[in-house]
Each structure stands twice: as structure tokens, then as C-alpha cells.
């Protein structure tokens, strides 16, 4: 657990970067600091490992005041990832990853083994281990940055816009893998971003800061979307917050319809206007119009691929999108292995949405009302 207690940072030139910030980042959870550029996110993060010293207030790690610890020792116990990875250009990928273990005095063999292991953990080809950072793509560098931060298995990780310098597709992929990794590792993470979508996707808890370094609101993402504390937060989380909140609502109430389908390569027998095409494993591939195909086998060129596919155990947002994007107006749902389970229509998803409960608003404390407590539960 990381606890900010009335933390203020004023730089010598008079800029107040962070103003009286009180916040708890619960153990094993991802707390995201989000806000416009210059609102003090980086400054807040760097006060945790004392790259910047607070002017007032204090930060504690599991109840211990960081101000009393040896700074270099404190830092070796905290993983740190930054934008553009900040890799050492003169070290190979493996040597970069082994940086902190080496500083901690591990023996050479152990450092090497651990570095190799981490290369795999972050999904990089072992062959890349002997390359230099300039020989990697941006996404690969970012993965090395994460591996380096994880090397000594620190319980706490600080991440400063780690994915913002890569293109959107790679970013999405890195985010998904990051969440999967966190599921396994359960680190206490403070994650900084200026991107509210990223904050909502990754955060167990999201803290919105405003310029001047004050905390506007801290809450679990669905609470934030449902009950923005003020106009600033409402604006920042965006106009389509109602739609986005759906991503936290799971879809168990949906009644699914069974959907006739044809295996690709076979001739459709149905004369429906749209027919779903699946592969041999019953994984949906797309829709066809049997009238156009006629009496020949369905080929992959016949497929209309516009419809999205949602997981039946996923969010209402996914189910609604599947229904809205389907040319047949029937949203395709699959199980966790990607096998077709049925379809659902948009109005049925909407009915389910209307039946969901919104997180209850805490009238007494609009700013901290939706925040997590120390144990990571709703406070």
C-alpha cells in the first residue's frame, strides 16, 4: 500500500505542481493518476521513489515513511517504467533487464537466468536478448522497459505513460498483456497517463488530477463514470461516458438465441437473408447473404466481416457493439474459447442495461466517495 498524506510539491521557481494530495494506492491493485498535461502526475509519481522530495506532507509504503529510507535502496525496491522506455543504449537487452539485480549484487549467473526468464514473461523472442535497444521497435523497447522494472520482483511498480509513445494497435496489445501479467503478479502499481480511456481500461482505481496539482476525484472507474464529482471530471471523462460505463457491466442477464450457421466451404441450405459462417471449430468468421452465394460453397471472399464478436461472459458494451455492428442486426456472442454460443439483439441488450444498477453515490464525500480502501475494497 502506498499512501500520500497531504503531499504538496512546490518547485523553487514557485510552481505548485502537486497541492495537498491525499490518496491510497491499495496493495496488489492498479491505481491510475490521470489528468491533462502539467497537472502534476509525473511529479506525484516521482515523489514515491524520491526522485523528487515533497515540500510538505509525506508518503508511506506499507506504513513506513519513505522520507526516512535510503533513497537508492528505496528505488531498487520499486520498479519504474517510463515513456520511450528509457533503456540504456549502451547495454544489450538482457543487460538492460538485469540492471537492478546487478545493482543489488546478485551473482552473474542468477542475473542472466532471471533476465532470460523475464524476456519470456513480457513476450519477447529470446533471440532479441543480445540486441541493443536501437535495434528494437518502440513496442519491443517498451516491453524491455517493463521487464527491467520487474527484474528484481519489486512489490511496487511506478509507470509513467509507458504506452503513450507507441501506435494505437500496439498500445492496445501492450495494455491487454499488461493486465494479464498483473493478474498473475498482483503488484501494487501507480500508473500515470493523460488518456482517460487507458485510465478506465487499466485502473482498479482512477485518480483524476487537475492543473495546479489538486485531486479532483478518486474512485473506481465505474463510479467515476457514473458520478463525476464536478464539471471538470465530467468533462474529462468525456461525453460518451454513459456508453463507456457499459464496459464494466457484465452480461449474464442476456438471453441468447441459437443461430443457424454454415461451415465455410459448404453450400448454404438456409434462404435467410443473412447467414452466419463458422469454421470447423465453430468459431464465427462473418456473415453471408445466401441469395448472393447461390448453390456454390461459401468461400472466404463472400464473407461480410463488419460485425464485431463479443464474449458472452464479457461486458454489455461488447454485446451492444456486436449487435449494432452486425449486418444481420444479431450480435454474435462466443465463449472464452471463441466458440459460437448464440446471438442477441440490440433491444435485448438495452433492456439488460436498464436493469443494471449504477454504483451508489456517496453524498458525503464526492471526491473520495468511490475510492478503494486499504484492502482494495470499495471504501
Amino acid at each position: 500500500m502506498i499512501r500520500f498524506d497531504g503531499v504538496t510539491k512546490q518547485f523553487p521557481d514557485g510552481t505548485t505542481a502537486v497541492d495537498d494530495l491525499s490518496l491510497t494506492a491499495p496493495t496488489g491493485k492498479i491505481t491510475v493518476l490521470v489528468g491533462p498535461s502539467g497537472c502534476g502526475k509525473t511529479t506525484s509519481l516521482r515523489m514515491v521513489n524520491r526522485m523528487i522530495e515533497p515540500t510538505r506532507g509525506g508518503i508511506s509504503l506499507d506504513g513506513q515513511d519513505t522520507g526516512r529510507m535510503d533513497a537508492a535502496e528505496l528505488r531498487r525496491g520499486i520498479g519504474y517504467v517510463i515513456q520511450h522506455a528509457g533503456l540504456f543504449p549502451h547495454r544489450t537487452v538482457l543487460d538492460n533487464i538485469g540492471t537492478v539485480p546487478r545493482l543489488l549484487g546478485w551473482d552473474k549467473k542468477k542475473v542472466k537466468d532471471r533476465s532470460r526468464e523475464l524476456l519470456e514473461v513480457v513476450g519477447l523472442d529470446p533471440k532479441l536478448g543480445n540486441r541493443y535497444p536501437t535495434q528494437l521497435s518502440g513496442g519491443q523497447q517498451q516491453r524491455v522497459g517493463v521487464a527491467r522494472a520487474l527484474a528484481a520482483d519489486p512489490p511496487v511498480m511506478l509507470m509513467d505513460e509507458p504506452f503513450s509513445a507507441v501506435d494505437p494497435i500496439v498500445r492496445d496489445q501492450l495494455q491487454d498483456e499488461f493486465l494479464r501479467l498483473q493478474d498473475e503478479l498482483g503488484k501494487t502499481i501507480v500508473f500515470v497517463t493523460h488518456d482517460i480511456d487507458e485510465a478506465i481500461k487499466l485502473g482498479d482505481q482512477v485518480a483524476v488530477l487537475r492543473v495546479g496539482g489538486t485531486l479532483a476525484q478518486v474512485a473506481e472507474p465505474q463510479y467515476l463514470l457514473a458520478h463525476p464529482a464536478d464539471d471538470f471530471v465530467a468533462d474529462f471523462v468525456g461525453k460518451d461516458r454513459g456508453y463507456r460505463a457499459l464496459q464494466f457491466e457484465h452480461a449474464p442477464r442476456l438471453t441468447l438465441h441459437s443461430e443457424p450457421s454454415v461451415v465455410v466451404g459448404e453450400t448454404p441450405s438456409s434462404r435467410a437473408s443473412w447467414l452466419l459462417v463458422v469454421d470447423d471449430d465453430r468459431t464465427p468468421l462473418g456473415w453471408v447473404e445466401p441469395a448472393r452465394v447461390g448453390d456454390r460453397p461459401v468461400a472466404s471472399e463472400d464473407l461480410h466481416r463488419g460485425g464485431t464478436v463479443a464474449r458472452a461472459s464479457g461486458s454489455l458494451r461488447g454485446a451492444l457493439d456486436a449487435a449494432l455492428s452486425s449486418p444481420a442486426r444479431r450480435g454474435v456472442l462466443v465463449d472464452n474459447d471463441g466458440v459460437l454460443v448464440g446471438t442477441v439483439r440490440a433491444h435485448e441488450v438495452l433492456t439488460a442495461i436498464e436493469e443494471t444498477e449504477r454504483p451508489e453515490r456517496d453524498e458525503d464525500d464526492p471526491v473520495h466517495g468511490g475510492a478503494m480502501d486499504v484492502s482494495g475494497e470499495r471504501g
Partner: protein
Amino acid sequence: MDWFLANWPRVIDLAGSHLYLSGVPLVVGLVLSVPLGWAAVRWRASYPAIITSSGLLYTIPSLALFIVMPLILGTRILDPFNVLAAMTVYTLALLVRTVADGLSAVPDHVEQAATAMGYGGLRRLFGVQLPLAVPVIASGLRVASVSNVSIVSVASLIGVSQLGDLLIDGYQRVIYGELLTGILACVVLALALDRLIVLGARLLTPWQTAGGGAA
């Protein structure tokens, strides 16, 4: 050419002294300029003082410095150590700024990453900053090596032998062959030192020559 063929053992001998008198100060000057350059970067307030005063040393005429050295060091007038010390001063004058520039050129995000990983003091200097400053320092070293090879010939005037002897003798006695040999030998020596530095820098910076761009 004839002159060289008749006198080559002496030329080789003088070239050896020349190399010794210009090369050793190069190494010593480099070693001394690292802490000074580091201090200038580490304590920004000291930067102007350190850089300006070391730079000014280069403006002292070499003959004056050769002559003053025995007074400062308490050595004998003809002691080659005077020349070594003076050349070290010139090397230092050129390299302190170079080292400071090289250290400040380490990218900010790399410095921050180093801090965040818990790098401090000497480990940071030798593990991160100096290796990354090698290309800049090497370019300064190349300038200093040429400068040393050229300045050290003046030492003939105070009786310390090296290739400069050929220049002075050749000029006074109007022996063009000797004059030409002296000049060529200096050029060859300067080029050889230069190649050596380039090669050394390349060996120390394998990441700069690692083939292929981003995958």
C-alpha cells in the same frame, strides 16, 4: 627520400620520443579531466569556473610553459618531465570541456532511468554516464592528439629531443630532405594516433555500430 634512407634509425628514435612525449600526456590528461568534467556537470555552479579556467590554460604559449615548468615543479631545465607536464596541461585544457559536454549529452530519460533504478555516485559515472560519453570524448581526444603532436615539437628549443629537432636542424642548415622528413613523420604519427583513438572508441561503443535499424 635520400636523406631519410641515410638517417632512418635516428628518425625512428625521434619519432619514439615524440610519441612518448605527446601520447603519455594524452592518457594522463584524459584521466585527470574526467573528475574535473564530472564536477563541472555535477555542480552546475562550478561549470563556468572549471571550464573557463581550464580552457584558458591552452592560451599559454608552449615555449613559456616549457620554461616555467621547472620553476613550478622544481625539476631541472632539461628534464623531459617538464614537457610531459606541460603537454598534460594542454590536454587537460582541451579535454575538461569535452568530458563535461559528453556527460551532459547523456539523454535525459536515460539519466532519469538510472536514478530510478537506484544508480548513484561512481557506479552511475562508470556504468552509465562515461560509456555513453565515449563518442564525444573520443572526438575531443582526437583534437587533443593532433594538438599534442604539433605542440610538442617546440620542445626542441629547450633541448628535449623529438621530431622537432629535424624541423629546426633542417631549417637552420637548409636541408630540405630533413625538413620534409620531420613534417611527414609528424603527420604520420598524428594520423596513427587518430586511427588508434577511432578504433578504441569503436571497440568501446559496440552499440553504435550494431547493424540494422528497428525490427
